[in-house]
C-alpha cells in the first residue's frame, strides 16, 4: 500500500507542487526557529557561573588622569566601599563585567587550536565578589603579583579545547602558537562564565590579574540583601567627594541581566510568532486542499470501497497520502537543512541542528495528520453506491 501511495502522489506531483513547496517552506522556517530555540534552551540550561543578585557595578571615569595615577585612588575607593557594613565584597575589574555591553576578545591559537577567547582583567577579590566556583586549583592571591610568567585562571571550556575534554589544567602552560613568548601559567579553573547571561553560550575565558596600568574601570560590589537606594545615594556621594572630577555611575547587574535577556528573547518570540502563523497557514491550506480533493475524488472512493476497501482503509489512505506528500517535502527540506551542520553554518553544535530536524519533522507530521484526520473521516463515510452513481 505504501508503494501504491508513493506512486499515486508521485504521478500527481504537478498538482501537488505548490502544496509541497508550502510544506517545504514551513519545514525550513520551523527548522530555523527550532534551531534557535534549542540553541538558546541548551545555553539556558547551563549555569552562568556567577551570582548577579545584589551586585552593583560602579563604573569609574577618571578623564585625562594617567592610569598609574588613578590606580591608587581606585584602590582607595574599593577600601572605602568595603568599610560599609552593607557591603560584603568588592572587586576592581575591566569594563567587560557581567551583562555589560563591553567585550574584550581575541582568536589566539593554543596547542594547534584556534578559537575565540574572552579576556578579563580582574583583581584577587573578583571570584569572591561574584561567587564564582573554582573547580580546580585556586584563584589569585596577592602573592602572585611578582611572578615572571603571568598566572591566569581559565574556564573549563578553554581547558577542554586546548588540552582535551576532562583533562586537568592547573600547572599547565598556555603558549600562543603565533607568539611563543606569550606564555601564561594556569593556576585555577572555573566552570562557566557567561558574561551575557543565561542565553549566551559557554565561552572560553582567561582571567588575568589586573595591573596598575590596566584599564580596570569598574568596581563590582556585593551588597547585603535589601540594601536600599538611600544607602546607594550616600555611598555615591561620599565616593564622589573622594575622587573629585571623576564620573561615577552605578548600575545593578540584575537589571542589566533583564535587558540582556530581551536581546535574545524578543527576536526568538518574533520568529516563533511568524513561524506559528506560517504553520497555521499551511494547516488551513492543507485542510482546504484535502476537503476539495475528497469532493473531487468521490468516484475513486466509491470504486475503492467496491474493490474491498473498508471505511478505515479509506481514512488511512488519505492520511497516508498526505504523509507521503509531507515526506517528499521533508526529504527535500532535510537535504537543505543537513547543509547547516555539514558546512558548520553559524558555528553551532551539530546536535542542535539534528535535534531541530527531528523536532521539525515531528511537528510537520503532526500538523499534516491533524489536518488530514477530519477530511479523511469524511471520505470514509461516503456511501460507495452513491459515489459510484454520481460519477
Amino acid at each position, binding site marked *: 500500500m505504501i508503494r501504491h501511495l508513493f506512486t499515486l502522489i508521485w504521478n500527481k506531483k504537478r498538482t501537488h507542487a505548490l502544496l509541497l513547496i508550502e510544506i517545504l517552506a514551513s519545514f525550513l522556517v520551523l527548522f530555523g526557529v527550532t534551531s534557535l530555540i534549542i540553541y538558546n534552551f541548551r545555553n539556558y540550561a547551563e549555569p552562568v557561573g556567577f551570582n548577579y543578585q545584589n551586585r552593583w557595578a560602579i563604573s569609574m571615569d577618571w578623564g585625562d588622569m594617567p592610569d598609574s595615577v588613578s590606580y591608587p585612588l581606585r584602590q582607595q575607593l574599593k577600601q572605602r566601599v568595603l568599610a560599609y557594613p552593607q557591603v560584603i565584597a568588592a572587586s576592581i575589574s575591566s569594563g567587560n563585567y557581567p551583562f555589560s555591553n563591553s567585550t574584550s576578545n581575541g582568536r589566539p591559537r593554543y596547542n594547534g587550536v584556534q578559537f575565540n577567547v574572552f579576556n578579563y582583567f580582574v583583581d584577587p577579590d573578583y571570584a569572591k565578589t561574584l561567587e564564582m566556583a573554582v573547580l580546580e586549583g585556586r584563584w589569585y592571591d596577592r602573592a602572585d603579583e611578582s611572578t615572571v610568567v603571568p598566572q591566569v585562571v581559565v574556564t573549563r571550556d578553554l581547558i577542554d579545547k586546548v588540552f582535551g575534554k576532562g583533562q586537568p589544567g592547573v600547572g599547565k602552560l598556555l603558549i600562543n602558537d603565533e607568539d611563543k613568548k606569550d606564555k601564561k601559567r594556569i593556576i585555577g579553573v572555573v566552570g562557566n562564565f557567561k558574561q551575557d547571561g543565561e542565553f549566551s553560550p559557554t565561552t572560553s575565558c582567561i582571567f588575568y590579574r589586573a595591573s596598575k596600568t590596566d584599564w580596570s574601570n569598574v568596581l563590582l560590589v556585593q551588597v547585603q540583601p535589601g540594601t536600599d537606594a538611600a544607602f546607594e545615594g550616600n555611598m555615591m556621594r561620599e565616593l564622589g567627594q573622594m575622587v573629585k572630577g571623576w564620573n561615577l555611575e552605578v548600575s545593578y547587574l540584575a537589571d542589566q541581566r533583564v535587558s540582556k535577556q530581551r536581546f535574545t528573547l524578543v527576536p526568538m518570540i518574533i520568529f516563533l510568532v511568524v513561524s506559528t502563523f506560517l504553520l497555521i497557514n499551511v494547516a488551513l491550506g492543507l485542510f482546504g486542499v484535502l476537503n476539495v480533493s475528497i469532493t473531487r475524488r468521490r468516484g475513486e472512493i466509491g470504486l475503492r470501497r467496491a474493490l474491498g476497501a473498508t471505511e478505515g482503509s479509506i481514512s488511512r489512505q488519505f492520511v497516508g497520502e498526505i504523509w507521503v506528500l509531507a515526506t517528499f517535502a521533508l526529504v527535500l527540506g532535510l537535504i537543505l537543512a543537513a547543509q547547516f551542520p555539514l558546512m558548520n553554518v553559524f558555528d553551532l553544535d551539530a546536535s542542535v541542528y539534528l535535534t531541530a530536524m527531528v523536532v521539525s519533522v515531528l511537528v510537520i507530521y503532526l500538523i499534516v495528520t491533524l489536518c488530514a484526520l477530519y477530511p479523511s473521516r469524511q471520505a470514509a463515510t461516503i456511501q*460507495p453506491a452513491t459515489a459510484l452513481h454520481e460519477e
Partner: protein
Amino acid sequence: MISLNNIEKVYRTSSIETLALANINLHIKAGEFVSIMGPSGCGKSTLLNLMGLLDEPSRGTVEVGGQVVTQYRDKELARLRNQNIGFIFQSFHLINDLSVLDNVEIPLLYRKGDSTGPSRRKLAEEALERVGLSNRMKHFPNQLSGGQKQRVAIARAIVGRPSIILADEPTGNLDSAMGNEIMNILQGLNTDGATIVMVTHDETMAKKTHRLVRLFDGSMVGDSILMSNA
C-alpha cells in the same frame, strides 16, 4: 450463489420517499450468466449494488454463498467484496493518475496477508494478458481507447479471481465492435466458471447470456432462461 429474498429498497430524503425496488426475489446459481434489463430508473443499478454489497436493502435479506450478509459489518462486507466479487462499470472508473498495471492491482492491495508486491504484480500482469492488454501495462488510462479502458476494468475485476462478476452496462459507452469484444471476454470468463450478472440496455448483448431478468418500476416483471445459451 446470490439470493435476494423479499428485497425492498426505499430512498428517503427529508421530504421525499422513493421506492426503488419492491418485493424482489432473485436467486442466481453458480456459473450463471444473467442479464438484467429494464428502462432507465427502473432499479437495475440499485439491484446490482445490493448484490455487490455496496448498499443495504430497506427490507429483505441478501445471501452470498449461502450466508445472509445483511447484518454484516463494514469489514466483513469489504472482505466479501474483495474476495468474492468483481465489479465492471459503464464509465470504467479507472484512476487516471495510475498506470494500467497499478489500476489492475488495486483490489489486491486490500487483500490482507497473502499478497506481496511481486505476487500482486504477477497476478495483475496475468489479468491484463487475459484481456489482451499485456502491451499496455505502463500506459495511463487517458492514453487508451474506450474498449481498452473497459478491458482494463475487466482485468481489475478478475485479478482477485472472484467467483462473481457484476457488470453495470459494461458495453454502454462502447461502439458495437468494442461491445462485442467485451462481451466475448465476459463469455470466456463465464465459461471458465465465473458467475456473471450484467445490467444492460442492449437486447443483443442480453441475448448472449443464459438468463434474462426484466425490471420495471422497481419490480421484477420477467425472468427467463435463454435456452440457446444455457
